[in-house]
């Protein structure tokens, strides 16, 4: 469904002399889709976002928004997208209201005051609207950046670490807001975050970048499944000798941490393992199953030399 694609990037490359920051990157985002862009520091995420926003020119490759070439249709495109990043700043002396009014004017937002008030309330910074930017905490700045990012009712929004520096309760509210925006307005999002739980919660699809290249792409669940090993944690308060004998006999790999035994096991063998404990009459006071997460996968990718997860 070509007309469903809001962003289509083909063979995007950025070179700085001999250094290749982004190497032949291709990706697309469908209408209403939330795509996660993950990678360790230096993977090329920020460079990619800068090229997507037109504040850095690519060495080669093409970018199309809503089927139109970028930056050829720069103004038309930029009026329909927006971005938020914790790595930017705003006019230092300006109040929140003045900052949002400046951007509302630049985006030619209709009924500016009403829209600004709505967003200030939405992000719970209405009471500090007369406060200068330099007086804000990191979390308050992040909320202001997000308010700016939604000023122009964007069809696609690039969110670079959108909930960094936020208190957990505010981060939850922001995620709820993002989900609501997506369901109400079918807003597409490109999402980078170091909070893997957040990426798992928000993104339908995740792209993993390393050294400027895409090394994997799938749903968060499928990426996590690429790590075969899971862990079963067994807490035995009195005597765990019987359990250790059983594990040694069955040649399971395990770690003992005081009264907790952590057994490494493939996800598909967990039920069989638990059944064996029952038939061997090994009683546990507590059982926890730790399935691999996106974070486990990410760490494995980051720590592997070539990004090979197999």
């Amino acid at each position, binding site marked *: 469904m070509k007309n469903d694609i809001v962003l289509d990037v083909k063979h995007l490359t950025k070179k*700085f002399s001999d250094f290749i920051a982004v190497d032949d990157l291709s990706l697309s985002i469908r209408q209403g889709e939330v795509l996660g862009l993950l990678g360790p520091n230096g993977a090329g995420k*920020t*460079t990619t976002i*800068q090229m997507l*926003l*037109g*504040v*850095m*020119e690519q060495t080669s490759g093409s970018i199309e928004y809503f089927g139109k070439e970028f930056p050829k249709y*720069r*103004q*038309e495109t*930029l*009026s329909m997208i*927006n*971005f938020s990043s914790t790595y*930017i*700043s*705003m*006019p*230092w*002396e*300006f109040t929140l209201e*003045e900052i949002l009014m*400046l*951007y509302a*004017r*630049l*985006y*030619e937002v209709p009924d500016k005051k009403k829209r600004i008030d709505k967003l200030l309330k939405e992000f719970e910074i209405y009471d500090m609207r007369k406060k*200068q930017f330099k007086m804000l905490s990191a979390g308050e700045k992040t909320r202001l950046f997000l308010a*700016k990012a939604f000023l122009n009712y964007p069809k696609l929004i690039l969110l670079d670490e959108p909930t960094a520096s936020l208190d957990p309760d505010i981060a939850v509210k922001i995620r709820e807001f993002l989900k609501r925006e997506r369901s109400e307005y079918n807003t597409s999002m490109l999402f980078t975050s170091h909070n893997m739980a957040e990426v798992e919660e928000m993104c339908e699809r995740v792209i993993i970048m390393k050294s400027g290249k895409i090394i994997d792409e799938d749903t968060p669940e499928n990426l996590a499944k690429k790590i075969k090993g899971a862990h079963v944690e067994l807490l035995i308060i009195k005597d765990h000798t019987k359990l250790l004998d059983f594990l040694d006999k069955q040649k399971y790999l395990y770690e003992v941490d005081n009264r907790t035994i952590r057994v490494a096991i493939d996800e598909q063998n967990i039920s069989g393992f638990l059944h064996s404990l029952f038939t061997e009459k090994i009683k546990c006071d507590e059982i926890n199953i730790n399935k691999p997460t996106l974070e486990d996968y990410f760490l494995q990718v980051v720590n592997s030399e070539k990004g090979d997860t197999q």
Partner: protein
Amino acid sequence: MNLNRVWAMVLRYVCNMRHSLDRLSDMFYWPAIDLFVWGLTGLYLAQLINKSHQYLFVILSGLVFWLIIWRAQYEITISLLSEFWDRNIVNLFTTPLTLSELMVSFMIFGFLKTIGSLAFSATLAYLLYGFNVFYFGWNLVWFFMNLMLTGWAVGFLVGSVLVRYGQKFQAIGWAGVALISPFSAIYYPVSVLPHWAQKISAVIPSTYIFEAIREMLFTHKVSYDKIWISFILNFIYLTIAIIFFRYMFDKSRKLGLGRLV
């Protein structure tokens, strides 16, 4: 060119000035200091020589009219630098704002601030020394226009360096225009310059305006040919400066505007 966005940026710089006492005070502080110090020096020299006010008026007209060039240049470079200092340049260019719109907003804001600063200086010169800029009549418009164009041309040339290399060259944002001041013959005629300097001064548009101003003060005649030469030179330099600014901006965008902050 979207005028709403241009106006949004003009208001941004007006708002910046409102919040920043030093940007507001520089409209009045330095012109006032210059008028006091150099005006009184000129007054003393005039009394020493022949009690004629003509030489005092040469110095005063130099002070008042040089302000136009300096202010026009300064507002372009400082407005640009303020976007670097606020780490706001990336934000701006992720909106539909174009480089042309930003440049026009620099020019409009500079124009408005120059009018304010010039009105203040002219009033002060009249009150302190009886020097009336309206003596020049409608020619004031031609002088003002040409000097603004020179200031903008220098502003965009200096801005080209800033937009390409960032804050490490920010000192030229304040002092860039000073480079042409010795050759502009602000307080003295071109004829007193060394021969090599006269050649340079012949290609600087502001020279012709200051020569025309002096000529009017001494002979009460208007030298339209000088005004025209200045206008033609200004047109050429401003065109080159704008093209060069755009070229350097594009070079900078290749490397990423994010590195400027």
